């Protein structure tokens, strides 16, 4: 084991970094999009629509790409999912629309729905065409807490329905995980902010940043000052390893690393360990591990305490990490962070097995040398307690319309119980909540 911890910036040249953090999956060319659109069978009651949390009319938007009606295509997408551009980039389509595509049964190869969705939405953003208009103003005012996918989706839908919206966001920029929590190469060229600009261009949405619920205002105040409140608070807590040494320098939350990377203008200045260990089995773990590798880490190992079948990262994500040289180890849990000179130098794991359905240590251990350790074992709901706001399994309880237990308060996105923790599901929550708020306010 090395004596000196090796966490250094500038492991790779600016040119290589630019390539590593450019578009990981470049868009289809217009010619490729036409060939791919031609593969869509225009199914009746298409299974892909059912598989999309926002219910985009996929066969219609694809047919419109084929006929050259790109504006109509993008309109189909964005009227069901205002973040159709981001979802085209980050949706795990392999477990959603593309998994349901009947072409899988026929020839084991789905239509590339995500890539086609990007073709149509990119076209629209490039053209700068505004396809939404606001309904006559209702005079009603709605507060949206949280400027992530759920909050922005709710805000946009409410604004189109004629309500005035104020979005309160705790960070400096809107976007939530789209801006702070997704690997840079999935959404390069500041796409998250480009999409937000399009959303805000509808008008009627006031944005307040650096505003924290509890610190800068209470839920009671919002409920009194507005006709309705939507909570899109996200998950701001991070699970701990509960292993000795996790407070040592060199041990970091994966979400913080990902956010820092996204907000760093010059990646040559961002330090990364020579040997990196990531703990966790979800997409955050994959994003942290793969980006560490692409920043120039020599060895990156992702360790997950269970088997491949329970990893929440999809097989496509796992393949992606492995293609990037990340080593994935299953069936091991962290027991102790090792230290040299007061900083993390490695981490010891215990092999695990299933006993009576529970993950149990076998007693056998191994140690991985590590200059940097990223924790990616899940985020938690960590908002302050609100009197009368019922929780369920540690998150906000909502009904099918995304109403909470409090009158005038709706919620959606990762902060509500039963969520899928996907951008697309959050967008749907915001949309459904907005429709419910609208129905209530105009009743």
């Amino acid at each position, binding site marked *: 084991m090395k004596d000196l911890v090796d966490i250094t910036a500038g492991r790779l040249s600016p040119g290589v970094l630019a390539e590593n953090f450019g578009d990981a999956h470049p868009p289809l060319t*217009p*010619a490729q999009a*036409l060939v791919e659109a*031609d*593969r869509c069978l*225009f199914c*009746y009651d298409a299974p892909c629509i059912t598989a999309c949390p926002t219910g985009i009319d996929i066969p*219609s938007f694809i*047919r*419109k790409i*084929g*006929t*050259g*009606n790109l*504006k*109509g295509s993008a*309109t189909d997408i964005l009227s069901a999912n205002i973040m159709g551009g981001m979802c085209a980039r980050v949706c795990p389509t392999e477990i959603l629309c593309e998994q349901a595509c009947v072409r899988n049964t026929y020839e084991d190869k789905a239509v590339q729905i995500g890539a086609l969705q990007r073709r149509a939405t990119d076209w629209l953003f490039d053209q700068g065409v505004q396809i939404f208009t606001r309904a006559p103003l209702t005079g009603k005012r709605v507060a949206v807490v949280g400027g992530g996918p759920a909050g922005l989706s709710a805000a946009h839908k409410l604004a189109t329905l004629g309500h005035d919206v104020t979005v309160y966001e705790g960070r400096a920029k809107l976007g939530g995980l789209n801006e702070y929590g997704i690997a840079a190469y999935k959404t390069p060229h500041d796409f998250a902010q480009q999409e937000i600009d399009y959303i805000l261009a509808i008008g009627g949405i006031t944005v307040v940043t650096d505003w924290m619920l509890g610190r800068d205002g209470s839920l009671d105040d919002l409920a009194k000052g507005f006709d309705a409140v939507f909570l899109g608070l996200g998950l701001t807590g991070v699970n701990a390893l509960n292993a000795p040494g996790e407070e040592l320098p060199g041990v970091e939350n994966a979400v913080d690393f990902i956010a820092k990377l996204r907000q760093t203008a010059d990646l040559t200045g961002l330090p990364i360990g020579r040997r990196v260990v990531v703990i966790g089995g979800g997409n955050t773990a994959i994003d942290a591990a793969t980006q560490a590798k692409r920043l120039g880490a020599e060895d990156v190992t992702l360790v997950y305490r269970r088997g491949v079948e329970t990893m929440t990262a999809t097989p496509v994500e796992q393949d992606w990490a492995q293609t990037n040289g990340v080593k994935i180890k299953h069936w091991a849990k962290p027991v102790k962070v090792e230290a040299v000179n007061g900083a993390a130098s490695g981490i010891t794991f215990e092999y695990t097995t299933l006993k009576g359905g529970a993950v149990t240590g076998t007693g056998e251990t191994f140690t991985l040398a590590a200059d940097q350790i990223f924790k990616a074992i899940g985020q938690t709901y960590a908002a302050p307690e609100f009197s009368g706001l019922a929780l369920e399994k540690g998150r906000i309880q909502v009904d099918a319309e995304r109403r909470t237990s409090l009158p005038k308060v709706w919620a959606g996105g990762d902060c509500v119980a039963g969520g899928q923790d996907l951008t697309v599901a959050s967008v749907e929550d915001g949309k459904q909540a907005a429709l419910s708020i609208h129905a209530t306010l105009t009743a």
Partner: protein
Amino acid sequence: MADLRTNFAGIKSPNPFWLASAPPTDKAYNVIRAFQAGWGGVVWKTLGEDPPVVNVTSRYGAWHDGNRRVMGFNNIELITDRPLAINLREIKEVKRDWPDRALVVSLMVPCSEDSWKNILPLVEETGADGIELNFGCPHGMSERGMGAAVGQVPEYVEMVTRWCKQYTRMPVIVKLTPNISNILGPARAAKAGGADAVSLINTINSIMSVNLDKMAPEPVVDGKGTHGGYCGPAVKPIALNMVAEIARTLDTRGMPISGIGGITTWRDAAEFMALGSGSVQVCTAAMVYGFKIVEDMIDGLSNWMDSQGYATLDDFVGKAVPNVTDWQYLNINHDLKARINQDLCISCGRCHIVCEDTSHQAITKEKDGKRYFDVVDADCVGCNLCMIACPVPECITMEAVDTDRPYANWTTHPNNPMAKVAAE
């Protein structure tokens, strides 16, 4: 948002997309589904005299491309096989419930004045917006002296049209058969008989394919087959030409035309309209994909019109007609050369071999000992063949070159023995 409202020979519809008289419009159930999906109008499947005809099994044949898209389709169905009274009752109910949609009734009865005189008041009583005379059906009915058997004889077309104008106040649309040497004959006859409009084309006589195991034409009916009516995307060029001929010829010009023939997308419809069609009729595309395709037709046409600055259909209907001319008036001094975009070229060599084998030997195959395809301007006649054979869109384009020669055409060319102006 462009205004798609249509007024075709006095028949109004919210958009120009009508379903043609065919299986999709055979009964109220289908027509209501079509209206719910957004179709602007329908031409009800052809009514005849009782007792109704009978149909055989099977009825349809098709030609698929390599991706199993239906490019051509044919059918040997006859007119409606339901009793007249049921159709009339349903037509009346549907028109009552959908007053903003165009509902035109297709008719085919024997070629006698009484037959037409008797059925017209029954149709008029339903409140339908108009009638379309089926002079085009090429199979079955024509053997009984109806359909194409009438449409192929201009005198009959004129006679029946005149009877209809005499016995009904409803607008009369005459549906023309393409199974004729010159479409202008029946078109002129329809006009002479007082028709308010024509619609074309009806289906084309065809044998879809031959089943080599059964040694019989498809669709096979108990070991035998017959010619059927051909339609679908493959017939569109034939239909466009016939529409254009009527739209540009002095004595038929200006007659409202409802364009029919392989229309599958808004773009197809726009082409028919540019050649003078005031409405369009669709059948095969609906029969292959369902009624929902009309959404893109409406949306796509509207978006395209917006992008072109056309506010209403009248702004572009017929706009391409002045540019359809006779060959003899084409500019003989216009010159094009093929251009190969080497960045897009995938080096398949098809441009070279088609030019080398079948045309003008104007595309070379190598450069510096390497596979490389380029155009020899001196030999290129600008025929488009390489561009058509090229599998990559936009890879081969045609570029106009300056010939330094003014417009000239065949009528004055020295090689023309019948030149109108003697060559100096």
